[in-house]
């Protein structure tokens, strides 16, 4: 199968001689990766939608910690329940969902203040990663599964995984649609939100649950190490070019989808793993946005906006005695 050979190290091309981009080769392989493209699209939308809330809550490190626990959960499920079973994919997915949801809710309980939370995450993260490595080493099955959860295995995404991914996406998107506004309020301004009657703690827990689900799904595709490329980088890029919550969300969805889908397509010709293409695209978009943002700030975005001269001029003009 073309699709599985893409991941095999033996299929690596000689980087000096092989082609890096060829349309015929891409169109020839597309039928084999349409599942991966759908997965990339769904994940891009999910990551782009949830990203602004992650940024507003200062949760980048918690996302990283959650993804490592997702890896540990998947590895544990593979070791304890996956032996002698054909559908290891489903077992790994279930384990990684359990791991990341538990971790995300735990990080949510640890409190609102990023400083308290971050040291606790820093303690839990290496422990989870170490356990995951141990579980994988003890698993007697095929070696090609071993690092899929770390660096991603989108090309071999199965129909079952696609259905699971779609279901989770519906749940997460519906949840975010209902609670995005009070959640943003509570994230930006917890004291005032609480005074206004927003259930700040309850929202935190539900949000962390949705975040855990999203992370688990993303781990399946780009791997635990690269989750940040779809959940953090697109929003960080978008926030450089706009501060409107709506437009940050729109741009971060676009950036995440372009990174995920574009990365998969770009990886087809050289036959290399998809993850570096996804992360490089996301990083390139981020760099471009930083430059645009720096130009905006230099032109006075931080202070009076582009039209700053107009009101001053009008005020000065109206101060003159007319006629």
């Amino acid at each position, binding site marked *: 199968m073309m699709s599985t050979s893409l991941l095999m190290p033996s299929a690596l091309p000689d980087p000096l001689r092989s082609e890096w981009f060829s349309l015929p080769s891409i169109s020839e392989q597309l039928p084999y990766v349409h599942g991966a493209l759908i997965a990339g699209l769904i994940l891009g939308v999910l990551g782009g939608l949830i990203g*602004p809330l992650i*940024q*507003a809550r*200062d949760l980048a490190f918690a996302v990283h910690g959650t993804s490592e626990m997702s890896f540990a959960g998947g590895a544990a499920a593979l070791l304890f329940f996956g032996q002698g079973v054909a559908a290891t994919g489903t077992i790994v997915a279930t384990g990684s969902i359990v791991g990341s949801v538990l971790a995300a809710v735990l990080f949510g309980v640890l409190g609102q203040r990023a400083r308290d939370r971050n040291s606790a995450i820093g303690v839990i993260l290496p422990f989870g990663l170490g356990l995951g490595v141990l579980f994988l080493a003890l698993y007697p099955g095929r070696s090609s599964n071993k690092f899929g959860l770390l660096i991603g295995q989108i090309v071999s995404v199965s129909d079952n995984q696609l259905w699971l991914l779609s279901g989770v996406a519906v749940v997460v998107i519906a949840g975010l*649609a*209902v*609670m*995005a*506004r*009070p959640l*943003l*309020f509570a994230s*930006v*301004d917890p*004291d*005032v*939100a*609480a*005074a*206004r*009657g*927003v259930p700040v703690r309850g929202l935190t827990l539900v949000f962390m649950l949705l975040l855990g689900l999203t992370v688990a799904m993303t781990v399946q595709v780009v791997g635990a190490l690269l989750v940040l490329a779809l959940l953090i980088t697109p*929003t*960080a890029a*978008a*926030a*450089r070019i*706009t*501060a*409107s*919550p709506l437009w*940050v*969300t729109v741009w971060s969805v676009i950036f995440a989808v372009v990174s995920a889908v574009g990365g998969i397509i770009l990886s087809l010709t050289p036959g290399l793993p998809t993850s570096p293409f996804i992360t490089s695209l996301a990083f390139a978009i981020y760099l471009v946005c930083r430059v645009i943002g720096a130009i905006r*700030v230099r032109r006075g*975005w*931080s*202070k*009076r*906006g582009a039209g*700053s001269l107009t*009101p001053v001029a009008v005020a000065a003009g109206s101060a003159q005695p007319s006629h």
Partner: protein
Amino acid sequence: MTERPAVQRLANDHALAASNPTPAVHLRDAGLTFGDRTLWDHLSLDIAPGEFVAVLGPNGAGKTSLLRVLLGMQKLTTGSVTVDGRPVNRGSRRIGYVPQQRNFDPTLPVRARDLVSFGVDGHRWGIPLPSRSRTAAVNRALAQVGATRYADAPVGMLSGGEQQRLRIAQALVTDPSVLLCDEPLLSLDLAHQQAVADLIDKRRKEFDTAVVFVTHEINPILPMVDRVLYLVDGRFRIGAPDEVMTSSVLSELYGAPIDVLHAGDQIVVLGTDHHAHHGEHDVVKAIP
């Protein structure tokens, strides 16, 4: 808590409060106890519409807890409280709340106008659809505090003073009858302290909004304060600033010798715990 110093006698026969049938804030024999620690009790206070009451006292005296009671986030142990003649309920639009300034990340995806619009419907579920009335209310509130020029700037890129103006706009956008302020001037420089205090004063004069203003530092708001509620360790005193901010009253409240100096139109309090923490601050303030 049976023995009561004389300072707990209520100075509640304030002319303003007596003249109005429905006070903006009405506390009757209110008490708040956490475990075996009583923050304050037998507190009766009527705040008239448009009245400016400063709440002072050392850390832990229950100043913020009093605000939480008025916000409906904390139940009284004893007594009763009403706002606008009705029992308090959390999230009431009759109450505006201005907290301390805190720093926002410069890349936080929230503009000045978004912060204000949280005051309109930030607590509501569902996707925020574009609404002309919300936009109009937000623009009006931004104009009231002079923040129109930076309405579309990211909040994290604004100065502390500009951010506090936005918080006032956010608190006023529902047109509340009571404005609760919890150290809103903290960490602002003198010029911004004055500007923000003036905004609050202007609002209460124009719209008859009662103001309850918790602070460590009375000087920036001294010209606008009608009455002071001074809380110390379960004891309190209510009255005009001249009646409360005196050496004898504060010495009685603290149970230790306190010197209150009047330097020009500034008040310097010497000998309190709060002074030990903020002493440098006070001296700097007293110079201009």
